């Protein structure tokens, strides 16, 4: 049983469980699914300053912070007790392409050539962690949601602005992957 759990889970199991988050949150507490708002609530709770956008009763949305806290704990459990001992199995063209950029370590979920503290102090690491993170935090709030709020919750509720947002997420990702990353990876 444990051996089976340690293997990577198929997409339909993960997709179904993530999809069930929508009715779970709605029926348990009348909450709509979304994760990026947690960053805004953290601003409102810790550093509201004189910014109108952060002046609201964040305690009414504190469930969202309990939710992301749970995600962190769940990931800790899975990463430390249920992790797959084998290398990640990548699509062959992806693996071959990344190898041409010097990314060959598939022993873990993240490539060790990028995801390390030593890398943080290189230009490439600065762009991957600091600039990339900033784009995620700024972009999701500007867009009014992320993959969970727009692509999953918004599309589930047939909100067409969420379809616009989801299409823009994909365009941004494709532009980065095909036109910018090839240079960033060789920095």
């Amino acid at each position, binding site marked *: 049983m444990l051996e089976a759990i340690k293997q990577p889970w198929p997409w339909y199991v993960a997709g179904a469980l993530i999809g069930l988050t929508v*009715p779970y949150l709605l029926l348990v507490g009348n909450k709509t699914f979304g994760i990026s708002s947690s960053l805004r609530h953290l601003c409102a709770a810790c550093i509201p300053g004189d910014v109108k956008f952060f002046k609201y009763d964040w305690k009414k949305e504190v469930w969202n912070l309990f*939710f*992301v806290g749970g995600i962190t704990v769940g990931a*800790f459990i899975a990463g430390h007790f249920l992790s797959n001992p084998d290398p990640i199995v990548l699509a062959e063209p992806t693996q071959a392409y990344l190898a041409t950029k010097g990314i060959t370590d598939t022993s873990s979920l993240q490539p060790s050539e990028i995801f390390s503290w030593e890398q943080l102090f290189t230009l490439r690491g600065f762009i991957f962690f600091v600039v990339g993170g900033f784009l995620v935090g700024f972009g999701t709030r500007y867009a*009014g949601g992320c993959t*969970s709020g727009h692509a999953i919750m918004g599309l*589930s509720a047939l909100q067409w602005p969420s379809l*616009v947002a989801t299409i823009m997420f994909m365009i941004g990702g494709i532009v980065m992957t095909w036109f910018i990353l090839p240079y960033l990876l060789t920095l």
Partner: protein
Amino acid sequence: MEKIIQPLPAASGTNDLATRELDAMCVNESELKHPWWHNLKYSAWGVLFGIVFVKAEIISWFRIQEMFRFESFHMYGVIGTAVVVGLISVQLIKRYHIRTVHGETVHIADKTFNKGQVYGGLMFGLGWAVTGACPGPLFAQIGAGYSVVIVTFLSAWMGTYVYGLLREKLPH
């Protein structure tokens, strides 16, 4: 979109709801008051969610590369299945007027279009492909032991803060 960029007083009641709903999908008003530990039911689901994120390798930078390179079906399968399950659930809740466990009517706020979904969406897409993480997986990557992602998280937090500072100057 005048309504959206209008400054709102930080008061309680409906004005506070309007402020919280600005540029946010996941805000909702429940009239019920519960003790704090009721929030643990969200933590419990979060734990399951975090395990799924790691076990289905959704938090992997590699899987995001595969997705944007159109070389693997995995992430499309995950997101597609999640949307179908969510869609069916919402339709069932609406059609049969299913109420929450506390008897409240389920409420899903309508999303209005503004230019932020275009510009912000594009920015997030660029960041997603480089970090390999949307906000949920950011928390999960840290939990799973990739400690350098704490920097990504802090930077994302600052990104949201800077957006809050600039929002009235940005096109919406």
